[in-house]
């Protein structure tokens, strides 16, 4: 305990986004009295990422409307923000980090919250193409907005039918832009949802005049003076004034890797978010962590995971014995559809769909035998909270009752008879 009350200790955090920022404030709440210094290569006051592909993309708002916290709130909690500063090295023996300009910063405790960066696939011609953008940062959004502004024909091709690609398509459509989504797999969202959800979203986009084509393996991009032509291996071609790439991420693990920290599909951490190296923690998208609920190591890209690991790491740094035991949750907004997900569906062998009377209100329940693994709730917060309750409590569900919309949607009505 003396450590956390000591004012001459320094906690250094690399990465000031959902993970790093929440860690800093949680540390103060836990009683850390020493210095807290957050470093981030991004020069912008830390902001919420989820709106980047949703409301913010097509608004005229400045990014400060999306700030995680006001500038004053950092000052109030005596948290130092070093923005626009790239960290280039970690030295665990000397307990310091090196910044891009060569200067060093010593730490007593280090937290790595470096997140992830978008993959730009090695498709011939893509790098050289005109107006190609990933979507991860505020800068990416301002680049996309600016390119749209100056583009005459505003034809957008999105490579990748994951949540970011689909949200981006829905948002841009609101601006009246012509959008096409190209997905390599045989269905969109194939790694994260059941076919019934893929079909629902495919039809949703089609109904909004956004064609979503599957089995489209983009294999070349050719650019002339005016536009790009995106070619797929089946011979189809799409014209694009802008190309937005949403095919997944690489974990920012190199700093940790070079410092000899254990890596496995991400920075490997235990249930207190600690790495295998003394006084070095890692949180958020960059971690490969143990989830006790599902009894396996996982990597997650979600606000929930970044925030919950931040709280766990803060408590651990302050001498408590917290355990990361969260059930993952996530959301996605497309057009007037709000999707809320809880749990992890990997490994399911049965899916129950419950449709409510109202149009476009339903939920998809993933089971492995009799064990509930996850719920996808569409415009159905009720299903989301009921699913959460069952996942936390572990009670068995009567699947026949669950599927029957005439059964009033309350946890007690869905219990399986013992």
């Amino acid at each position, binding site marked *: 305990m003396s450590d956390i009350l000591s004012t001459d200790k320094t906690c250094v955090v690399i990465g000031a986004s959902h993970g790093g920022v929440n860690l800093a404030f949680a540390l103060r709440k836990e009683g850390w009295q020493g210095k807290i210094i957050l470093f981030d290569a991004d020069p912008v006051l830390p902001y919420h990422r*989820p709106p980047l592909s949703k409301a913010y993309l097509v608004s005229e708002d400045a990014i400060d409307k999306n700030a995680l*916290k*006001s500038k*004053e709130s950092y000052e109030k909690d005596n948290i130092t923000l070093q923005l626009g500063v790239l960290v280039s090295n970690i030295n665990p023996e000397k307990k310091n980090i090196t910044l891009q300009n060569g200067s060093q910063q010593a730490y007593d405790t280090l937290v790595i919250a470096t997140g992830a960066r978008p993959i730009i696939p090695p498709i011939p011609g893509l790098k050289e193409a005109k107006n190609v953008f990933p979507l991860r940062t505020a800068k990416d959004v301002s680049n996309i907005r600016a390119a749209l502004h100056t583009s005459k024909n505003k034809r957008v091709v999105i490579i990748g039918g994951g949540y970011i690609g689909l949200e981006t398509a829905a948002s841009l459509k609101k601006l009246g832009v012509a959008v096409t989504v190209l997905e390599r797999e045989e269905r969109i969202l194939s790694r994260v949802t059941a076919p019934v959800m893929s079909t629902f979203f495919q039809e949703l986009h089609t109904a909004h005049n956004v064609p979503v084509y599957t089995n489209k393996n983009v294999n070349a991009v050719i650019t002339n003076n005016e536009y790009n032509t995106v070619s797929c291996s089946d011979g189809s071609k799409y014209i694009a004034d802008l190309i937005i790439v949403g095919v997944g991420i690489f974990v920012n693990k190199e700093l940790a890797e070079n410092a000899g920290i254990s890596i496995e599909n991400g920075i490997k951490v235990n249930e207190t978010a600690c790495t295998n190296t003394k006084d070095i923690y890692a949180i958020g998208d960059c971690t490969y962590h143990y989830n006790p609920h599902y009894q396996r190591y996982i990597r997650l890209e979600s606000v929930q995971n970044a925030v919950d690991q931040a709280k766990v790491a803060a408590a651990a740094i302050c001498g408590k014995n917290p355990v990361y035991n969260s059930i993952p949750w996530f959301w996605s907004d497309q057009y007037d559809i*709000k999707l809320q997900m809880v749990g992890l569906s990997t490994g399911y062998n049965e899916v129950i769909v419950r449709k409510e009377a109202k149009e476009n209100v339903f939920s998809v329940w993933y089971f492995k035998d009799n064990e509930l693994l996850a719920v996808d709730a569409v415009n159905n*917060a*009720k299903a989301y909270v*009921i699913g*959460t309750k069952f996942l936390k409590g572990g009670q068995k569900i009567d699947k026949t009752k669950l599927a029957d919309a005439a059964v009033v949607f309350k946890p007690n009505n869905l219990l399986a008879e013992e």
Partner: protein
Amino acid sequence: MAKITFITTEKEEITLEASTGSVMQLAVDNNVPGIDGDCGGVCSCATCHVHVAPEHTAKTGEASEIETDMLELDDNANEYSRLCCQLEISEALDGLVLQVAESD
């Protein structure tokens, strides 16, 4: 300008002033304990749960369906519960008193 008072779970009273934005953002920007606003204000996280002082429910109006649904199984929810990311600040909220809800 609207003056809004938060009463924390530790019974601390914090009065803040603003003219625009959501009540959640006001609380987060001023480090009001117990209001995290993790989802950024889109009714996905319920970390911005407050109880409106009973005499002030006319100022705030009623909770929307998604707010009620998100809080339905929350042991700390009651008829005065709101997700304060859904409360847009305006003159109408001047004098509002909100109790920050406990979280389980």
